[in-house]
């Protein structure tokens, strides 16, 4: 709407649409031709993999000699599906990932808002966190075992460490990027300290926080195999690691694909949640 003309006829909808109209077009965003091309590319990769492992390609540096073929993996995957243990593997892993992720969400957002809003917290909290940040999950295993009363908690701690930093850093970034004029004008409308936080800072940082959550969800799954090295019985990561020690090579790939699929699905869930929670964000992106 380029002019004020519409004001003389209030109620006429413009091209912008209503905020309630939330289209599910993102699933079918691409034209059929490009979707087919993408599917064909995936198939080509699988076909190459099949050929490379059946014919035992050896490129010198990399060899497919011991790599299980997709056909073997499908059989192994089918066996896992038939197995009564599957549910336990999946449920245990889901609980570990989501507990770690939930704790990371809570702590990451709270600490992130504190750091983003206050120079004092930035100076006191950020330096130690920056030292801890580059330490990978696998390096935490011994300490995690020593620090926590149960191996279950140690595992949750490692998935927590995986998710915490992306959430924290994205929250800090989002809070610091909130338009200062929004804060200023809300104070001129009577908003106090807490209202500024609840009505302006957190909603303003939300797009960035959701990005952090989606990344954190991925990195939490990322750390699952590491975490479940400690496990004694169940978990997809445990299954993957155990398959290696038992030399069930196709099972390793099945475990890897499970983790990839679950990680992708739960990150997608977070992004979807973000879209539902922030209809205004997509509208704003479209109009700017």
């Amino acid at each position: 709407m380029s002019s004020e003309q519409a004001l003389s006829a209030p109620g006429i909808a413009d091209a912008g649409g209503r905020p309630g109209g939330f289209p599910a077009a993102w699933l079918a965003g691409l034209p059929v031709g490009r979707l087919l091309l993408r599917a064909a590319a995936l198939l080509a990769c699988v076909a190459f993999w099949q050929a490379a492992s059946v014919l035992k390609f050896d490129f010198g540096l990399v060899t497919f000699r011991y790599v299980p073929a997709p056909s073997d993996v499908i059989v192994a995957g089918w066996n896992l599906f038939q197995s009564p243990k599957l549910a336990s593997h999946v449920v245990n892993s889901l609980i570990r990932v989501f507990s770690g992720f939930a704790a990371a969400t809570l702590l990451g957002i709270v600490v992130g808002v504190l750091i983003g809003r206050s120079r004092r917290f930035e100076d006191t909290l950020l330096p130690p966190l920056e030292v801890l940040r580059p330490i990978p999950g696998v390096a935490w295993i011994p300490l995690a075992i020593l620090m926590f009363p149960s191996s279950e908690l140690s595992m949750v701690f490692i998935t927590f460490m995986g998710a915490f930093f992306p959430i924290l850093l994205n929250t800090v970034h989002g809070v610091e990027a909130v338009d200062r004029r929004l804060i200023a004008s809300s104070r001129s409308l009577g908003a106090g300290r807490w209202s500024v936080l609840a009505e302006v800072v957190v909603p303003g940082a939300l797009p960035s926080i959701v990005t952090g959550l989606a990344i954190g969800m991925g990195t939490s799954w990322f750390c699952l195999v590491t975490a479940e090295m400690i496990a004694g019985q169940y978990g997809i990561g445990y299954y993957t690691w155990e398959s290696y020690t038992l030399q069930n090579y196709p099972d390793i790939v099945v475990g890897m694909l499970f983790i990839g699929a679950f990680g992708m699905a739960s990150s997608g869930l977070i992004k979807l949640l973000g879209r539902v929670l922030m209809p205004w964000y997509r509208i704003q992106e479209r109009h700017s």
Partner: protein
Amino acid sequence: MSIATQAQSGSKAGRIELRDIAIHLPGKVRFEAVRQVSTTIAAGEFVSIIGPSGCGKSTLLNAVAGYLQPSGGSLSVDGEPVGGPGPDRGMVFQHNSLLPWRSALDNVAFGLKMRGVARAERLERAREFLELVGLRGFADRYPAQLSGGMQQRVEIARVLINNPRVVLMDEPFGALDAQTRERMQQLLLDIWGRFRPTVLFVTHDIDEALILSDRVLVMTHRPGRIREEIVVDLPRPRPEDIIVSPEFIALKKRCLALVQDEVRQSLIGGLEAPRIELPVEA
């Protein structure tokens, strides 16, 4: 309180007193933005501030809003020293500062929410104020779904709903096209006539200042002082063709001469004014 009663109550409050105001802004080098500004703005008066860009007009406005603390002098509204931002002094910026995640209606109702007014009541009143600024039927839109002029209408509505003594406007129509700007000026005059808040209006557009104001303060180049106060004794309501009347043109010539002289002097000084930003703590 309905709009009608709020308009009638058009209080006699909103007298702004500035005494020897000096403002220094932090930066790589702390610099003097405003020097020794003294003036009194009567309750219900409409006063514009013009001057070369970077002269400290916006800085002065930000001080009255309470966003920054003057380094010297005293600043009070109805005898109460300004300590910080508050709903008695509404602020409208050049670009809308509406909450992007709230509908137009919720944005207008924001001030009442902060005061703890129950949801049903505040939405009903917000609806009245949206209607007042000609936005009936746009209540559910997000700010991004409104044109620039509509966004500023929402801004004005959400400031007015707080029944402010003072309305501060920092080039509020500066980003709008010429036709929209004229409509907005008329709307503002209409609203000011009904509610009679004190309006302090910063603009670089001399026509705009003269059409709207009772008095125009011309500021010097930086550090900004008040160079001259020009009383605009044109009758109200002012028709659109007033800008071609001899009286108007005479006033405009005076303003133009003053501003151009200041621009010239600032160029001789060779000082490129730094961009004014809101203080971090805001």
